[in-house]
């Protein structure tokens, strides 16, 4: 079996508007990489974010490599949260750890990994540090998908809303194969354009819109 790993790299806006593809092999296993537009979020309103999001939903990559600036975790982990909500297999790469050190940050990677429920690799890409470990980790993570509990639980009321919507969504036989239902329920609550469009054409549209509208 050949697992295909796809890479997701952050960038400043304006640089990558479209996805780019490449491939390499590691330990004899061929890997296909797709570089998606770098974003901080995954809303339906911006085209680059939508490109990334649709790719993940439609192509269901074996692994999403989320490369973030280690010196700016507060901002960058938001995307990680969204990726986890999308029910993807995520490998988090803390890049620019040299800079984080310069800023005086001490990151407890084991703790962070455990809290998020995903593997983490630290790198300094400009100096080639951690790249060998990264390749190993990509291979391992792409082959062994870890089933994790939700990294983020909302408060009780919101969670029961989500459960209620998921129960309705399950009734439409077409949806579960296409979308992670918990994600779709959350997006419906956010009144996400794309999610609302899906809801409107679904067999359970009336029930859904009754809750959301």
């Amino acid at each position, binding site marked *: 079996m050949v697992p295909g790993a796809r890479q997701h790299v952050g960038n400043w*806006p304006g640089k990558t508007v479209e996805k780019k593809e490449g491939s390499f092999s590691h330990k004899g296993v061929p890997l296909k990489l797709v570089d998606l537009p770098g974003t901080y979020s995954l809303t339906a309103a911006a085209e*680059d974010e939508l490109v990334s999001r649709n790719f993940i939903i439609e192509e269901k990559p074996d692994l999403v490599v989320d490369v973030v600036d280690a010196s700016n975790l507060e901002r960058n982990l938001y995307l990680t949260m969204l990726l986890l909500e999308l029910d993807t297999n995520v490998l988090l790469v803390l890049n620019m750890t040299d800079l984080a050190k310069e800023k005086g940050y001490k990151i407890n990677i084991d703790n962070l990994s455990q809290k998020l429920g995903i593997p983490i690799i630290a790198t300094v890409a400009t100096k080639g540090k951690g790249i060998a470990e990264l390749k190993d980790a990509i291979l391992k993570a792409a082959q062994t998908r870890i089933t994790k509990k939700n990294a983020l639980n909302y408060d009780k009321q919101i969670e029961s809303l989500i459960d209620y919507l998921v129960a309705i969504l399950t009734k439409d036989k077409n949806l579960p194969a296409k979308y992670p239902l918990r994600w779709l329920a959350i997006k*419906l609550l956010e009144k996400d354009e794309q999610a609302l469009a899906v809801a409107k054409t679904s067999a359970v549209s009336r029930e859904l819109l009754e809750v959301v509208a």
Partner: protein
Amino acid sequence: MKAKKVLGDDADIVLADARYEQISKIIEASLVKGERKRTVTDVLDKVFLNKYVGIPAFFALLWAVFQFTFEASAPFMGLIEMLFAWLSSLAAQIPNEVVASLLADGIFGGLGFILSFTAPIFFLFFALSLLEDSGYLARVAFVFDKLMFKLGLHGRSFIPMLLGFGCNLPAIMAARSIEGKKDRLITILTVPFMSCAARLPVYVLIAGAFFASHAATAVWSMYVIGIVVAILFALLLRKTILKGEPAPFIIELPTYKMPTLWGSVLHMWERGVSFLKKAGTYLLVGAIILWVLSVLPWGVEAGSGDSLIGLIGQTLQPLFGPLGFNWQIVSSLVFAFLAKELVVESLGVIYGVGGEASIQAALVASITPVSAFALMVFTLLYVPCLATVGVIKKETGSWKWTLFAVLSEMAIAYLGALLIVGLGGLLGFS
């Protein structure tokens, strides 16, 4: 069950808040922030990101860029020009009159002339690559973003605008990363005012002829005027037909890095080579067509008022009378609708061989310095090239907006040039 009862009207914000709350909890447990060392980046950003100093510092750096471009490229321009003058004199000796004229006047006179401007284009790209690779350009986007947001515009637009300095095409495409249809449209409609590399030869030729030691400053002023007009036009659109509220955006500021010579040369080459490719294809075909138009009907003096090119120019010249443009300039502007380099190329064909100095002398003899500056402004502001029109159509998906873009750019260019002529008159220049 009603979602609204639990989440209120701004469910997306409530959920985003919950995510950030979770993130800060996680970070609190896994990250210790120790003593922060003051880095080089902090010190430089004190200046470059400063509310008051940031934008003037950018314009000052840009001025230095043009001084460098002018000084460094002058000897190379001379060399390339000598090469083509020599080739042209060789070609003139070919016995077949038509072939001799096509090669001497069309190819070497027109295309060769524009090729001598390869030097300033490459040096400009080199200087801009240094600024980009050092991490500075991201700061420029940041300071302009703040200004534009205050003006009610989408700050993210300035990145496509900066890309526009190289070529407007990828810049217009980069507007895709902008949220909201209206903000995207505003960006697409304003990017063409950013002075792309194709316009540089026109400025260099004219500024060199009329403004001598202030030539680099005159060229620099085009880039400044381009930015100012783009922002003013964006404001106008925002207040009239594309009303709305801007969304704040975050930009990642990389740390400053010492740019490497090799890296910047590579960057320069990647961008500059597209100009050479254009010269080998479109501009070559352009030179041939211009030459044909300049010698037909066969027998007239090449490039004179009796040739086809002369007739086109003379027919439209009255429109440009108030700006003080002669028919030679008017016909070059007509062809430059296809690509801006054609201004230089057609002047080369019309005024015949003899290189930069003789064409500059002919220009100085026929228009005033004020009209010359107006010509630079006109070139800056009107439709960049046919390809941009195509991309605007593709990106807006609407002929209506494409037509609007073309017409508004023409009108703004004409008004801008007229304003220069008027101001020049008021200030007593002539």
